[in-house]
């Protein structure tokens, strides 16, 4: 238990230790000067990531028996939130290190889980390449094609917005292998190695926010991939992805809550110091109400996230609960940052203060991993349910 | 106190380095004299070394009533075993009531080893010395908790009472080369088999052009407010104009902006210059512990709430990058006038 009600009060001793380790490490290894430098240059601090990984934070999504850290979902959320407190961009790339492994947990063979788990524990990065220029959530529009050729597949296509595209050794690539339909059949998932001939990275995205996170295009030109690199049976890739996403929703938005918490802490600090009309602005009700709304949003978003994560840890994977988490937490985090920026007023708009970066970083969470419109569609659809004709 | 009737005299250990007496031992002859007088006793300087002739003269010049000198090649350079052995023999023979040792690295190595061997009390790193009115014992005052708290310690039940005293707190008296006294030459030879530690080499790192902090009359110090290591140039420019030494806060040293040898503070050096100019230093207690004894403290900081202003004689609230160059220019003008 801590004495700050904004902290999550139900952490176990182990969880508290892990979160404390993140804070101790990041406050030393990623000071604000480095955060700002990485943001300006769009650079991911791989050296910092390596140290953090070697402490035991690599392969967070990989179960212990396959060589990973073996943290449960709630613990991963708490760790990711702590990372987000320091830099959303760094956090996004770091936590994405083992992201491409997750479909293996659902559909991979034991050999695959073991072999690739070990590689992640050793610090290799594994990106997920699903989105294409013309199709994101609309998976039916996938154009990357994998054509069978003997025991291999030849893959051709373009992927964009690949998180960690430029720093990964492994990619999970979705490709059309059969007749595609609205149920998402006909798509398969492949494990592609960076050094397979024909694999190349495109430009690094010049993003509005999370600029310290590495994001590139991926081009596959006649890339020969052995059939053993399929994740699960052929043509089941889309379902695997959807099932996987249902389990990753809570962890996905966790860094956003760390960004939001940083914004709140800065806003509180500022409210105590900045004096207008004869008193600290924190004594004006208007500011107090704003801060209160920010705290309400943070706590409710986190509670939803932990609830979702707890269900996942208990084996309950509900897409809709995940969509609620994603939609709510992303918008709550962004609103908190915008409100904090407003409290800073002019200084919140200046690059010499940390607020504007927090707003830019928080913005992405409503967009990626399925924009919030898609999330609302999923929720609304389920609520109304099937109507008999 | 009557049980200690056979313990008398206040001893000041004159630490030497490369044959020359360190300033601290000579500084301690100053308070030592007054304390001995109050106790109705004599002040004896004790010197261990290879050739003590010059240092004996210095001890008398700075106030010693008497000198005990032990000479031998085994004392040419500080060695825990040799010095503790010799001092134990001297204490057994002469039974001093009090001993002052400079709180240098060697002093703080030597003091506890000796005190433990003599089964007596040692008070470390003292910044004030007096006689306890009630009991007549030495009252040793020293900082604790990083300088946040002062404690006054007594050693009522054992003898000698020993204290290591911080260098730079007391000033040497005016040297009087005419002052002489009795020299007791003690022949003590340390058995080879008790020497366990060997000095392989002693490396000097501070280049000659940097004025030693402890002896400097004026010090210009830089802290976190400088922002970048390159900005120590502002500090050096002003130091040059003043003929001053360059110091630093722990924050600047920890950040790797300047070597540890320049650090002033609780875990750095204690200085007591005529003028101490703190630039971009907030004034944490640990830093004040190292320079609080300066005659005149000047602080330049853009934060009006910085604790350094509570101890400064003169303070400027403002941007040091604009202030320091102007100060340097004004001082050069004065010097050329």
């Amino acid at each position, binding site marked *: 238990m801590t004495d700050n009600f904004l902290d999550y009060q139900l952490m176990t001793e182990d969880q508290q230790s*892990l979160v404390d380790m993140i804070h101790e490490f990041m406050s030393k290894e990623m000071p604000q000067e480095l955060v700002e430098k990485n943001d300006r240059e769009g650079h991911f601090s791989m050296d910092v990531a390596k140290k953090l990984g070697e402490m035991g934070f690599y392969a967070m999504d990989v179960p212990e028996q396959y060589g990973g*850290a073996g943290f449960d979902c709630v613990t991963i959320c708490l760790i990711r939130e702590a990372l987000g407190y320091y830099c959303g961009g760094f956090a996004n790339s770091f936590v994405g290190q083992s992201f491409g492994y997750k479909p293996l947990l659902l559909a991979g063979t034991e050999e695959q889980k073991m072999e690739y788990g070990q590689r992640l524990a050793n610090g290799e990065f594994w990106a997920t390449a699903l989105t294409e220029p013309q199709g994101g959530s609309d998976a039916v529009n996938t154009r990357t094609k994998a054509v069978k050729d003997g025991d291999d597949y030849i893959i051709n296509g373009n992927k964009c917005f690949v998180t960690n595209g430029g720093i990964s050794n492994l990619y999970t690539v979705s490709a059309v292998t059969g007749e595609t339909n609205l149920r998402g059949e006909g798509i398969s998932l492949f494990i592609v190695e960076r050094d397979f001939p024909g694999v190349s990275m495109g430009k690094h995205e010049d993003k509005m926010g999370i600029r310290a996170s590495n994001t590139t295009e991926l081009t596959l030109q006649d890339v020969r991939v052995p059939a053993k690199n399929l994740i699960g049976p052929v043509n089941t890739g889309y379902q695997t992805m959807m099932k996987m996403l249902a389990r990753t929703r809570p962890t996905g938005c966790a860094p956003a809550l760390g960004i939001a918490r940083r914004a709140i802490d800065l806003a509180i600090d500022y409210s105590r110091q900045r004096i207008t009309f004869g008193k600290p602005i924190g004594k004006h009700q208007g500011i107090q109400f704003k801060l209160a709304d920010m705290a309400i949003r943070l706590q409710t978003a986190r509670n939803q996230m932990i609830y979702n994560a707890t269900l996942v840890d208990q084996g309950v994977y509900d897409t809709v609960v995940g969509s609620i988490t994603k939609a709510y937490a992303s918008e709550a985090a962004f609103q908190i940052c915008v409100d904090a920026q407003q409290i800073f007023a002019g200084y919140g708009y200046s690059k010499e203060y940390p607020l504007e970066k927090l707003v830019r970083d928080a913005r992405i969470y409503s967009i990626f991993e399925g924009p919030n419109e898609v999330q609302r569609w999923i929720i609304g659809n389920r609520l109304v349910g099937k109507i008999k004709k | 106190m009557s049980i200690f009737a056979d313990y008398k005299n206040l001893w000041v250990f004159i630490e030497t380095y490369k044959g020359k007496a360190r300033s601290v031992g000579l500084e301690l002859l100053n308070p030592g004299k007054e304390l001995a007088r109050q106790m109705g006793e004599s002040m004896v300087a004790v010197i261990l070394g290879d050739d003590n002739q010059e240092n004996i003269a210095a001890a008398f010049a700075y106030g010693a009533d008497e000198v005990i000198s032990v000479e031998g090649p085994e004392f040419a350079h500080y060695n825990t075993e040799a010095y503790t052995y010799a001092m134990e023999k001297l204490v057994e023979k002469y039974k001093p009531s009090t001993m002052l040792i400079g709180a240098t690295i060697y002093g703080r190595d030597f003091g506890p080893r000796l005190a*433990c061997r003599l089964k007596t009390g040692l008070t470390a790193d003292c910044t004030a010395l007096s006689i306890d009115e009630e009991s007549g014992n030495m009252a040793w005052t020293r900082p604790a908790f990083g300088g946040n708290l002062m*404690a006054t310690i007594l050693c009522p039940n*054992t003898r000698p009472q020993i204290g290591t005293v911080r260098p730079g707190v007391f000033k040497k008296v005016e040297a009087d080369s005419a002052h002489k006294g009795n020299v007791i030459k003690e022949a003590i030879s340390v058995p080879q088999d008790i020497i366990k530690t060997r*000095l392989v080499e*002693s490396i000097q790192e501070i280049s000659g052009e940097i004025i030693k902090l402890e002896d400097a009359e004026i010090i210009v110090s830089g802290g976190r407010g400088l922002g970048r290591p390159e900005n120590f140039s502002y500090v050096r420019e002003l130091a040059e104009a003043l003929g001053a030494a360059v110091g630093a806060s722990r924050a600047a040293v920890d950040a790797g902006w300047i070597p540890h040898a320049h650090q002033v503070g609780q875990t750095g050096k204690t200085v007591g210059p005529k003028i101490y100019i703190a630039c971009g230093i907030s004034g944490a207690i640990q830093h004040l512990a190292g320079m609080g004894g300066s005659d005149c403290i000047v602080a330049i900081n853009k934060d009006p709430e910085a604790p350094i*202003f509570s*101890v400064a004689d003169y303070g400027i609230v403002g941007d040091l990058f604009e202030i320091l160059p102007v100060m340097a220019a004004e001082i050069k003008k*004065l010097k050329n006038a």
Partner: protein
Amino acid sequence: MNILVCVKQVPDTMEIKIDPVTNTLIRDGVPSIVNPFDSYALELAARIKDETGGKITVVCMGPKQAEAALKECLAVGGDKAYLVTDRAFGGSDTLATSYILSCTVQYLEELSGEKFDIIFCGKQAIDGDTGQVGSEMAEHIGLPQITCIQDIKVEGDKIVVRQEMDEGYNVLETKLPAVVSVTKTPYEPRYPTVKAKLAANRAQITHITTAELTNLTVERTGLKGSPTKVKKTFTPQRKGGGTIIQEDAPADSAVKLVALMSGAALI
């Protein structure tokens, strides 16, 4: 290498504030940490263990809450930890403390049947600031000591160390076993690994009390065994009352300051 590291749990004196009204220390809410110099000592010990193998025992004299400090040490290289704790030890000065710890060393060596090769201490505790316990332990046990070391290398049956000096540094060597005290090292204390940290959380810290230390004479501990006595404590006086210059233009402030100082015949 059989290594012993002596540590102390201290309040983080960088965080201590003085109550402006009562002029006393505000200790509430000040986090307890492993004494920073002890962390450097443990780091040097861990580096030796990395290179030559061996075992690190960590020992701390303190109240039960000091177990947290011992657990932190287990997470960064310590293999076994002991808390030396007994009401009788309360009020011990450095002579008494070093006596207790030297009895503990003897006890642990008899327990394991192995002598310690190197005993590490931190240069000083940032609360007591005396820097005496290490040297006094060495004297009690009868071992050579080297204080204020910044680095250490094991060469066969001896150690070569770098000792901090005002002017630069010394290189010294001594035969093992020996006691060393450690100042700031060029190596930052390592971060714990997740595995070590979680294992340390579960570790059981063995207590050593007067019951175990049958070789110890209780009269030589606690207040009774302490030749130094605290007469009083007080907070240092603030000077206060200086001249603050804050002209509109910083350059004007600078000129005014130099004029004032020259007027006061300071420069």
